[in-house]
């Protein structure tokens, strides 16, 4: 137990300096909206962590689940962004997405053998919810569509790289390492959940 708290503390120390406000707009890479979109998931822990968790969860279920996640997450995220951008209704509070991150991280940590349909449905729901929040933040921004394409492209690469790697994990220690990263994500998600009550 102590080891897990120690890991959570280290993760917090590593993550907090790079944290941005939950309602932040696209970061400015200086390269234009498409590249801003590419960089956004990579530099936004609240979006990157659940994407990593769902990629690992799908990868642990095998290549087929990984393939479905690869197709589902970017498209659901993109659909959510378009909805958030056009509808204008406020998204769910950040603490809800934080709890979703905790749940998916915990599923990875416990190596739950969920049915393929459940993994895909969870992927779609997570993508749509986070995408909606991104799209809502993008409302009124110039180059929003290019930014959305950048975000979806970035997620495609993240899911491809991580799900592919997790899908071929055979050694017990390597599978354990993937599960440990799931526990870290769950722990950071808990911290984000608590942090969301601060404001």
């Amino acid at each position: 137990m102590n080891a897990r708290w120690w890991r959570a503390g280290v993760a917090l120390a590593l993550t907090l300096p790079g944290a941005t406000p939950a309602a932040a707009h696209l970061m400015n890479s200086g390269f234009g909206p498409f590249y801003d979109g590419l960089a956004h998931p990579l530099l936004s822990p609240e979006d990157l962590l659940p994407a990593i968790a769902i990629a690992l969860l799908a990868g642990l279920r095998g290549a087929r689940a990984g393939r479905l996640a690869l197709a589902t997450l970017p498209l659901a995220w993109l659909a959510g962004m378009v909805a958030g951008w056009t509808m204008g209704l406020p998204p769910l509070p950040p603490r809800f997405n934080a709890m979703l991150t905790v749940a998916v991280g915990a599923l990875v940590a416990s190596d739950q053998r969920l049915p393929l349909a459940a993994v895909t449905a969870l992927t779609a729901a997570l993508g749509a919810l986070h995408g909606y929040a991104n799209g809502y933040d993008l409302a009124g921004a110039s180059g929003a569509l290019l930014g959305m394409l950048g975000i979806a492209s970035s997620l495609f690469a993240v899911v491809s790289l991580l799900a592919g790697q997790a899908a071929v994990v055979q050694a017990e220690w390597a599978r354990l390492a993937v599960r440990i990263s799931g526990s870290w994500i769950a722990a950071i998600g808990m911290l984000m959940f608590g942090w969301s009550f601060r404001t």
Partner: protein
Amino acid sequence: MTRRRRGAGWLISACVCLCALIGCAVTALADEIRPAYLELRETAPGEFNVLWQTPMVGEVRLALEPEFSGETALLAPVISQTNGTGPAQTSIQTWRLGAPQLRGQTLRIRGLENTVTDVLTRIQFLDGTVAINVLQPSAPTLVIPERQTALMLARNYIVFGIQHIWFGADHLLFVLGLLLIVGDRWTLVKTITSFTVAHSITLAVATLGFAHPAVEPLNAAIALSILFLGPEIARTWRGETSLTISRPWLIAFLFGLLHGFGFAGALTGAGLPRPDLAVALLTFNIGVEIGQIAFVLLVVALERSFRQLEISWPAALARAPGYLVGGAGAFWTFQRAAILLGVMQ
């Protein structure tokens, strides 16, 4: 149709849509970068000679204007002239500016956010200190620094180099074409190294002023180099061989010489003064290499992931990148040949 086939069809459709969307984005970003250049040289305390060079589209100067946040005054009227012809044509304006305290002021390029070009700025003060920066459409302002270190200068040019290759879809497509031809990792290393060495040579030659290839034929030749790879990629699909397939590093070297002249256009087109060329050349090239290596690593890693996920692309989709290289090469070749022949601007 079985559930498995339906699932695969859905996945393929999704991937096709995503690739098409990404393609649209890349097309949107594929415009040629011709930077503007703003130089302020302090000749007496608080008095600056200003050189403002902007690209022209046809007979029209890009609507870009430098603005300062603090106290400035026009000491001598603006003199305008044009330089060069065709795509290389630029507008040059000079005037004298009075600014008792320029350091700390915010420089803004009005209208830059509506373009895809960059503005290189160089401010030389009377005490010999020089501040060089790159302003971009998404960041069109600059706080003129009290003092710019060599590290800050290098960083600016490295970012400019990375930006140049990531925005230059033609260069990236050529590298992608090479990646589609090479068969193994050792050949990949040799090919990318050849391309890097070759474009570094001509980048240096052009930037240091030893050669000045005309812009129109150069752009057409670069497009032709991409088109050239299309049929070679198709040969690999048919299991055939050729000089390009057996020795891609040789072709990468030869065409890399052309692309280096293209990279140089970003620096020499801005008309940088000679004292800055060495550091600009070195750090800009480092930026180009960082951007290129990042792209190569990403493509190789993605290809590996697709194998790990056991994605069996249908032949048409698996060949789409090859068609993209050949198709874009053909389009740019016709377009740039038409510009070269004066059929279009």
